[in-house]
């Protein structure tokens, strides 16, 4: 299987993630989109590791790191979202522009 295909998949997933992050209003979906983007990166890492025949499996190990961090990040992110929801009964990103001037 040529590497281009894998990379195209990865690019497609990343683009889906970007779209989700930028376009959707639901915070939960935004978070999920971020996960999608991270997984796209993981695919890239694994793909290049295979392609380059890297002996130490650096790509795969990095992918594992990313998964771990993604989990942690999602945990924090969801916690914030839940708190926001409790406070404001909404998870719409538009309505939480507290940092505005």
């Amino acid at each position, binding site marked *: 299987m040529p590497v281009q295909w894998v990379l195209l998949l990865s690019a497609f997933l990343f683009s889906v993630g*970007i779209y989700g*992050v*930028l376009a959707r209003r639901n915070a939960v979906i*935004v978070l999920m989109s971020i996960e999608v983007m991270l997984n796209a990166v993981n695919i890239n890492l694994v793909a290049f590791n295979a392609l380059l025949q890297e002996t130490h499996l650096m790509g795969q190990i990095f992918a594992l790191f990313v998964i771990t961090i993604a989990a942690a990040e999602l945990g924090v992110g969801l916690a914030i979202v839940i708190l926001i929801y409790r406070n404001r009964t909404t998870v719409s*990103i538009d309505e939480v*522009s507290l940092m505005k*001037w």
Partner: protein
Amino acid sequence: MVSTVKETAEALPGVIEIAWLIPVIPTVCFFLIVFFGKKLKGKGAEIGIAGIVAALALSIPVFFKTIGQLGHKDFHGYSKSVTWMEFGDKEVLELGYRIDGLTVVMLLVVCFVALMVHIYSTAYMKGEVRYTFYYAALSLFTGSMLNLVLANNLLQLLVGWEGVGVCSYLLIGHYWEEKENSNAAIKAFLTTRIGDVGFMFGIFVLFFAAKTFNIQAITEIVEEGHISNTVLTTAALLLFAGAIGKSAQFPLHVWLPDAMAGPTPVSALIHAATMVVAGVYLVARMYTVFHASPDALQVVAIIGAITMLMAALLALIQNDIKRVLAYSTISQLAYMVAALGVGAYTAGVFHIWTHAWFKALLFLGAGSVIHAVHSNNMSDMGGLKDQLPITHKTYLIGCLALAGMPGLAGFWSKDEILTGAFDSATHGSTVGWVVFISASLTAFLTACYSARMYFLTFRGNPKYDTSHVHPHESPAAMTTPLILLAVLAVAGGWIGLPGSWNQFAKWVHFGEEHAVFSFPVAAFGTLLFVGGFALGWAMFHKGKFRFDIKKSPLAWSYKLLENKYYLDDLYMGVIVRPIRDQVSRFAYWTNQNILDAVVNAGGAAALGLGKSLYKNVDQPVIDGAVNGTARITGKIGDTLKFFQTGNVQYYAAVLFIGIGISVAGFLYFN
């Protein structure tokens, strides 16, 4: 550096050695009385009297010691001094005394009259306010006067001179609850002070001409002819200015009549016998300077001639008995001044001597009368002959001595003066004639007003309120001095009898050709006395030749006399009041509105400049620049804030676009 005075070679006789105590004792008494007087039984009077007795006790041996030496050729008087202060490396001022014939005569006069007055005052001032202070001032006066007499240099003399002035001020103003009295005191002080300034300048002139203040040294330098005539004339006239003030000569005589506001014994001591003769004494003391300048002597003589006549006329119309005596004193002082002016040195000083006795007697007698009738006015007296026998007799002696009755003290000195003036006149001096004529007229007038005073006071019918006033003779403390002075008023002149008996001329002389006794002049003098006294008797006792002067053609002259020749009004109106009220206010006005205004304007200008700088430069320009920076920053921020939407997705989009542009740029430029 030592002065040029030749000290007497031999050691000074014991009593002369301690002569410095004579002025010191009364001065110390002043402090004792001030600090302890009130607590003593006699309220301080005993200290004063003790001091004077001590001074007199010292003066008498000094007198005899000195006159014993006076015959000797090289004797110029005893003198002794210590350095008082030094200026620079050449000018020295000493503190010392000098004793010669003139000094000892004055010593006796001052001490004796002062003693009489001290004793007299114990009764006269009894129960009066400030009795203790009165004695303190008397003591200080005596000390200062003795210092004046004994001083061997002019500056020390000036110290005594001003000292007696201030005591006179204090005593004239003794009853200062009344404003008139303190006015009189101020008038006396200021008027004499004007003369004193001249005196001071005279001292300066002599000092820089002779390089010393020492009187004897100046005398010698002048005698040697080292000083130019102009300088001497200037110095003499300036010194004489002091004498004019102190001895109440025209035109500064105006203070003396007012000085009668003081207690009567004070008038006797200060304003008759001692202080007022200080001016004459000064002229006599510095006679070498005057003698070397004929012009100055002529001025002296003419001032004397004017004053004597002017004052005698005024004495004639006074109602206040003390004022009669005051004008009489001015007139008699002028006699002395004129005598010195025409060169009759001994005669002038002799008149100091005789005048002191009879004038002190008259004043104290007047005091006794005033004590009895409680009024100064002769219109409240009359017929007191029997109620006040001792006062009456002694007063009569005083009047006759003043009038110049032959045999009494006044006659001899007056005769000497007339002789001297006549002598000068016959030697071709116009001024001599002026003085002689004026002195003759004055002698006549003097006899006349003496008679008037006597008859109005003691003879005729009582004019006092007989139902309320019961005159009786004064206590012994007052009559004893009267008797003693009366004795001197009779016998005091006998030491100056004409001819070879004249002791006085041996004591006090100036090497002048002594005018010999002239019988015609003596007879003329006697005639003047008889005529004047008889006229006075006729007019004021017998009521002859009376006419209402106010309705006669002479009314203007009466008015002139009544207003004291308008001199007081002139001085008050032209000098004193304008300076005190207008000139001073104007000066203060200029101070506040010109000088101070300049300062304040300077301050205001600085303030205004500051304000306008602040308003027009600092705030808009400089501070404007600072604030402008801030404002511009703010404006920029205002614009940029719209990029801060707070929308995470917006931020993320920008982020991604940014990355895109960066990558694109990177690819493009590589």
